[in-house]
């Protein structure tokens, strides 16, 4: 996939570039929760002088960058169970208070990874089938319905080239009509009442090529 793409004169964003593209759109002062995977990388892409408050489900408000390997504090982890630090102004709360904040609509943004996003904003990110063995939902459903905005950061297609931006999710839903924007390795796409609308694409990629890798119809501009 990537090879073909390069031959065609464009280069997909790598994971950290996707995260950086997400970070560009997060203004100072927002309260933001980051899911596991690419979203986790977003925190380190926000310049330190831009104050964004990162919240983690396990009750950390205002976490900062990962500590140096020799300065890891085992009591201080994020929701992905990786070591983090606490910024000045940060605080610890318990799980019910943390999800009260999430479910009560107090987060400006949540960025999640996903298997699929449908053109109506449906998101599937927790189970690959209805008979999944021991599916693990974590806080995804709470975040998807609770945050004021839900963005998704993911690869545009599966490794096999199957589109992840679809007409209807084939995997079990995490939440219905919840996603407002998608950041992929190829483009940034808004979910609008009329379906997917392209905000921007990687340099050199044509709209037609992007549409070919997307199941649902795209609108331009």
């Amino acid at each position: 996939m990537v090879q073909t793409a390069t031959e065609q004169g464009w280069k997909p964003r790598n994971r950290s570039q996707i995260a950086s593209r997400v970070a560009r759109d997060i203004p100072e002062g927002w309260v933001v929760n980051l899911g596991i995977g690419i979203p986790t990388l977003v925190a380190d892409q926000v310049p330190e002088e831009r104050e964004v408050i990162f919240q983690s489900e396990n009750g950390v408000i205002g976490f900062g960058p990962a500590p140096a390997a020799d300065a890891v504090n085992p009591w201080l982890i994020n929701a992905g169970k990786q070591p983090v630090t606490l910024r000045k102004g940060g605080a610890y709360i318990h799980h019910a208070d943390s999800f009260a904040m999430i479910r009560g609509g107090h987060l400006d943004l949540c960025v999640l990874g996903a298997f699929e996003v449908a053109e109506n904003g449906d998101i599937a990110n927790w189970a690959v089938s209805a008979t999944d063995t021991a599916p693990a939902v974590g806080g995804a459903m709470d975040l998807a319905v609770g945050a004021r905005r839900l963005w998704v950061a993911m690869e545009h297609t599966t490794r096999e080239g199957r589109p992840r931006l679809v007409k209807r999710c084939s995997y079990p839903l995490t939440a219905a009509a919840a996603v407002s924007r998608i950041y992929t390795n190829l483009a940034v796409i808004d979910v609008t009442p009329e379906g997917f609308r392209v905000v921007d694409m990687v340099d050199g990629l044509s709209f037609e090529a992007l549409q070919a890798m997307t199941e649902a119809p795209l609108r331009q501009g």
Partner: protein
Amino acid sequence: MIDKRVRMVADALADVPDGACILLGGFGAVGQADALIDGLIEQGATNLTVVANNAGSGRTGLARLLELGRVRRMICSFPRSPGSSVFEELYRAGRIELEIVPQGTLAERLRAAGAGVPAFYTPTGVGTLLAEGKEVREIDGRPYLLEKALHGDVALIEGWRADRWGNLTYRESARNFNPVMAMAGKLTIAQAQHIVELGELDPEAIVTSGVFVDRIVHVPYATAAAAA
């Protein structure tokens, strides 16, 4: 830089609209945001709904707001206190609506609003006058009332220490309704006795996260005492 500090009470309250639902922290006078209430009196918004544990006493603060005819409806648990004559006269005269809510239900309805819970069941009030018009449901053999979240347009609260992110601590029993009202207000304005540098508040002991607070006004103790 996130900075929620607002210099003047008047600026903090400038956009409170007529008809707003105002949450007033405090239990009696303790933990009540006196300077913000005085600011609201000055500001002029009217036709208000006020949610507070008590219905004011004397002729100042909430009682004064009531006396000026600016409150259409009170939602509280304990309107009758020593000195609550302003409210009682208005109520007898039919010039104010009253919704009596058990204190625990009041606190829980506010917390529910802040926590994204639209409604919950409670045993409090079952079989009493306050159950009138409410859904009763049996769960595991016991009857419960359905109670709905109580949202505010504006919460006026009093903290003790605050930083520029809006993180708050309280002083002793002045904590009371303030933290849940901070969560339940669409716009939460706090007066604080002390403004401290970011990082000075112990992250283990911040009671209200700045995430819930929109504006902070520094009202040092001396000012409040002089106003009282």
